[in-house]
């Protein structure tokens, strides 16, 4: 029998039909929706006089637009309020489970899916959000889609999709002190560029990947879109099964045993061939930070900003434009650069482990006076856990306040905007121009790097504080 990759096995098992010389008709097991990319799809469906075909496989939560303080009050901004309300109405009309702002399970769509046990190995999962790749951490095929495709899934529980090529990224060895999954992600993207994964679906493997917790694996898979890949996945193992067991939507009793036996088979065959393969040494990865305006413009915290001398043509124009925007000069050190804002949260780093890491670092220290810090849990459950574990007291003693769940300053659709020209060290996923607010300057990093920056008030190496 032909050796197959994990990706092939799951994909091929979900093909309903093949279009000649065209895309596959892929069956979707779980469809997550939020307020921003669903309304036009619901409208389209209504125009066809249809309702959602499989509402029981669709899960909704408002996350992009929601405020992160005073969530018990009506949303102040009219357009945001209307978008969130539209989601509620659409879900009610179509019998879709909605975890609204006042629900104990509310949170960022890519945080709540896994934490409720909705995300499971071997599934196909889509959402009108590019960071759907997060769910691949469980050994599922998960990817972001556009609104036309959201409508396809509403209408048919299927999507037309050409099969991507396969890439494997191995990270072998032991990670250095203070190096997290986020650093692996930023390192890999810096190595292969922000478009290096385009057209491919990644499987992450190797001993350094195996050593990651589920939270870490989610952070890594979350960022796979930032190298242009359709998604990233990690074969499930005991770490995965332990994480899922007992969660609200996880299989129980006999069904658990049956599912577990199936999930244990989910891995790439030994001789499976990937279209592209990279291997990196874990020991080469330093705590990372970005200096430019795409996630591929990253480097170790002790490094110097590249000079860009060898670049020509539009590469050079683009590089110069990025440094101008950031207010950085070629060849400069990034360590010691002043930091105005720190953001801990988002679907990339808004899980309990991220806040534990942050709390552990800031415990007994004081936030630099000039730094504004936004500590935003990824979900109500994470928020509850932060309180139960006594992390809030640690935050408060160090000068930090805890906010309420949502996408927040990752894309600044709510009021959490970094002001023009200000520097932010952010645990989110994109440092694009204006991503965190018009004119905002974003440096992406891990929660540990963010903690170090919040305490030092400048870009700092957490190992030196």
């Amino acid at each position: 029998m032909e050796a197959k990759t994990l990706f092939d096995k799951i994909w091929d098992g979900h093909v309903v039909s093949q279009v000649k010389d065209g895309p596959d008709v892929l069956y979707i097991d779980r469809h997550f929706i939020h307020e921003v990319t669903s309304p036009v799809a619901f409208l389209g469906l209504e125009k066809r006089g249809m309702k959602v075909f499989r509402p029981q496989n669709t899960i909704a939560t408002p996350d992009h637009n929601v405020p992160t303080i005073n969530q018990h009050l009506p949303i102040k901004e009219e357009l945001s309020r209307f978008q969130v309300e539209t989601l509620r109405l659409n879900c009610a009309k179509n019998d879709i489970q909605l975890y609204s702002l006042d629900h104990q399970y509310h949170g960022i769509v890519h945080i709540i899916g896994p934490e409720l046990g909705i995300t499971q190995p071997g599934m196909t999962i889509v959402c009108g959000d590019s960071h759907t790749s997060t769910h691949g951490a469980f050994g599922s095929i998960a990817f972001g889609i556009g609104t036309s495709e959201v409508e396809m899934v509403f209408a048919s529980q299927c999507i037309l999709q050409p099969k991507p090529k396969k890439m494997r990224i191995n990270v072998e060895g032991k990670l250095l002190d203070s190096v997290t999954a986020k650093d692996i992600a930023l390192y890999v993207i810096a190595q292969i560029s922000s478009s290096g994964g385009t057209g491919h679906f990644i499987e992450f493997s190797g001993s350094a990947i195996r050593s990651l917790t589920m939270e870490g694996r989610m952070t890594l898979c979350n960022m796979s879109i930032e190298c242009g890949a359709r998604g990233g996945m990690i074969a499930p193992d005991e770490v995965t099964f332990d994480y899922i067991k007992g969660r609200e939507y996880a299989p129980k009793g006999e069904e658990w045993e049956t599912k577990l036996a199936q999930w244990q088979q989910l891995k790439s065959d030994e001789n499976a061939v990937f279209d592209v393969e990279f291997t990196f040494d874990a020991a080469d990865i330093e705590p990372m930070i970005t200096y430019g305006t795409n996630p591929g413009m990253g480097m170790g915290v002790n490094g110097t900003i590249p000079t860009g001398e060898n670049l020509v043509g539009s590469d050079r124009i683009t590089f110069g434009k990025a440094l101008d925007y950031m207010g950085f000069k070629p060849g400069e050190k990034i360590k010691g650069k002043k930091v105005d804002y720190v953001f801990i949260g988002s679907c990339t780093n808004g899980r309990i482990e991220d806040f534990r890491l942050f709390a552990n670092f800031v415990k007994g220290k004081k936030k630099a006076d000039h730094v504004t810090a936004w500590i935003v849990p990824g979900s109500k459950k994470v928020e509850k856990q932060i309180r139960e574990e006594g992390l809030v007291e640690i935050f408060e003693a160090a000068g930090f306040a805890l906010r309420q769940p949502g996408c927040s300053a990752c894309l600044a659709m709510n009021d959490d905007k970094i002001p023009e020209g200000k520097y932010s060290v952010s645990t989110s996923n994109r440092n694009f121009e204006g991503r965190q607010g018009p004119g905002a300057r974003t440096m992406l990093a891990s929660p540990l790097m963010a903690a170090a920056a919040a305490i030092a008030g400048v870009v700092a190496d957490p190992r030196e504080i």
Partner: protein
Amino acid sequence: MSIEKFKKLVSRVVPLPIENVDTDQIIPARFLKAVERKGFGDNLFRDWRYKKDGKPNEDFVLNNPLYSGEILVAGKNFGSGSSREHAAWAVYDAGFRVVVSSFFADIFKSNVLNNGLLPVQVPDNFLSEIFSTVESDPTSLFEVDLESQTVRNLKTGSSVQFEINSYKKECLLNGYDDIDFLISLKDKIVSFEQA
């Protein structure tokens, strides 16, 4: 339901020789709050196109009267980042029918195809030639022919073929809609679920 048909187009081009133009530049997140598909064209490249005071930035190509046309030509890795289809809507609503680059981000590419907008991927050297042709003469015309999958620089006469899968080509030529096609497969889908 259907998308607008596309067969052939002869037009001037609007050049944007910048790489990695992400969807946050094409349309910033703060303009994604509508619940209907309208008005996105006004906010295409919002933060490059307008100054902080809301006045047009005269240095930006969309505000330069020298350039016009239904073909947008951009540097490599156009449309990276978010899956927001609003980016495709914004480009389309601003009057473009074709986007040319040497490389497109995956989700953006699917999104434009689902909206009757043709992504044309060309080699780096052909892209550079377009930029220099337009730089020397902004009125230069280009022809994009979907049937023969060819893009031609009418000023220099050089042309290249571009790829598109035959299913999507058929959809664009005839204005077919993916969703109608999927709905027609309902029986197959139900039997797949029961298997």
